[in-house]
């Protein structure tokens, strides 16, 4: 898939680059660099090698839904700080910083939408908001998305990207696993479908709850989907990890997901599923 590029950056050949972080718009796989608008046009997929950059929630929504059809819900839900949590910095400070950085109120955006003409509910996570971690606010938003889908009799399309439960909310963050699962079960009892799209990375508590419970589970190429991250597994077991440890392709091989879908094909795949799950043509 990836063809090695000829390095034309001669003036930087000797520049030390070990611990230096790459620019977010530089492809970590082939080192091609793009402007924001170039990547926006290609759905944040590297045109050179096919690497899938992280996608912001707003861009994701725009890439999936019919133009102008998205109506956001529960936009005012915010996290609180029930434990007065303070590690190296206060949790409230981290929250405020994340909101400033991302322009989002939380790590998940939900709302009603249409995809290729078919109505659905959408819940989209954003990894750039505190690593997409799930606290009470994310759990609540996802639950409301389930209810909204059930009420309107439409499927819920969930896009996950999360490092897991949000430690700063302690045990209440863990309780978002049973909470979101209970909401999914209510949706399924009401006859609703859940289509789960796993984006890079989906790990820990989110994988161990709603993201795994889709009637259909899709994943983007090379996205990490594992309960424990590679570093934890390596440190705990001292095992040599396979090259494709926890990746979507490995999960597909072991039968945990239905299909690996490159981002440019996602919309068409979801649209087809929505048509198939819709009752009497809607």
């Amino acid at each position: 898939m990836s063809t090695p590029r000829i390095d034309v950056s001669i003036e930087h050949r000797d520049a030390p680059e070990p611990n230096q972080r790459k620019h977010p718009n530089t492809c970590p796989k082939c080192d091609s660099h793009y402007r924001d608008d170039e990547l926006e046009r290609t759905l944040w997929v590297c045109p050179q090698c096919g690497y899938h950059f992280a996608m912001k929630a707003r861009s994701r929504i725009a890439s999936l839904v019919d133009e102008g059809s998205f109506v956001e819900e529960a936009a005012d839900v915010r996290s609180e700080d029930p434990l007065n949590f303070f590690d190296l910095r206060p949790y409230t400070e981290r929250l405020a910083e994340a909101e400033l950085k991302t322009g989002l109120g939380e790590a998940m955006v939900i709302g009603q939408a249409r995809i290729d003409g078919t109505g659905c509910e959408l819940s989209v996570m954003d990894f750039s908001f505190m690593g997409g971690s799930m606290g009470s606010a994310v759990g609540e938003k996802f639950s409301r998305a389930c209810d909204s889908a059930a009420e309107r009799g439409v499927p819920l399309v969930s896009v996950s990207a999360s490092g897991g439960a949000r430690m700063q909310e302690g045990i209440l963050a863990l309780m978002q696993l049973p909470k979101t699962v209970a909401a999914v079960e209510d949706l399924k009892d009401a006859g609703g479908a859940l289509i789960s799209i796993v984006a890079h990375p989906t790990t820990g508590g989110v994988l161990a709850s709603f993201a795994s419970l889709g009637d259909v589970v899709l994943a983007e190429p090379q996205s990490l989907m594992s309960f424990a991250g590679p570093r934890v597994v390596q440190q705990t077991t001292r095992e040599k990890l396979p090259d494709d440890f926890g990746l979507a392709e490995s999960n597909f091989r072991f039968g945990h997901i239905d299909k690996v879908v490159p981002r440019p094909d996602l919309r068409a795949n979801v649209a087809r599923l929505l048509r198939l799950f819709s009752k009497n043509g809607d």
Partner: protein
Amino acid sequence: MATDHELRLRERLARLRSVNLLGGARLSAEVEKLQRQLERIAEETTDEDIWHSVELARHQDRPYTLDYVDRLFEDWFELHGDRGRADDHAIVAGIGRFDGRTVALVGQQKGRDIKDRIDRNFGSAHPEGYRKAMRTMELADRHDFPLITLVDTPGAYPGVAAEQHGQGGAIARSHALMARLEIPTVACIIGEGGSGGASALALADRVLMQENAIYSVISPEGCAAILWRDAGEAKKAAAAFKPDALHCFELGVIDGIVAEPEGGAHSDPDGAARLLAEALREALEDLEPMAPDELKRRRRARFRSLGVFA
């Protein structure tokens, strides 16, 4: 003059007094017990008290699931295997007579000596363990046996095979199955309630916690390693995310605290088993008159109400 700290404790005690989940004469004993605990907290620093719970929850002589099975059940019959791949010894499942009725039990099991510990994988289950748990829950559901789960795990096992066999999905589905059961279900955290591997067995109608058990989103060491970038700061991390029974009770995560004998469950396993049996009996008697779909509805509503947000 009352300090903020004292005021908080008084408020806490007032709230505990108003709880009538552990009804009758036992309530007063329970409140007395908690009052003693609160007094202890008032004297010592809270951080130390939380860390004491962490140490007791992991005490090497603490009674494990099978220690309670021996003392609580008659006619115990252990079930083995997930009917697919393997028999995971980190999770024990079976049926037995409890108080004259057949119940199903699922719980994590740690080992006592080195050989046993390795055999039980230190109480850390693979997906096969959760699948064994699920088939036992389904059996209970079909035959209307109430389900008791005893939770005691540092967490689900983080290994290559565990991931390849679908750890995340197995934990998700165990939660989901518990949300669908139409039988009375009672969970008790009896030691470490570590992360999703613990809550996968604790989506129950009543969630109890032993006095010195802990229930947390991540281990204190794991949290310290990530947020403080130093696993040695585990004590600080535990103080920050408060995994002890009292805090879990305050946050509405658990419905009741099961008293332990003076000094902790390990100092008197028989006494600890008696107190646990009493709490389980009471919870089951509470739940058994309820209609199956009512149980399910309330159980989901209970968990869906958890969380603090604006």
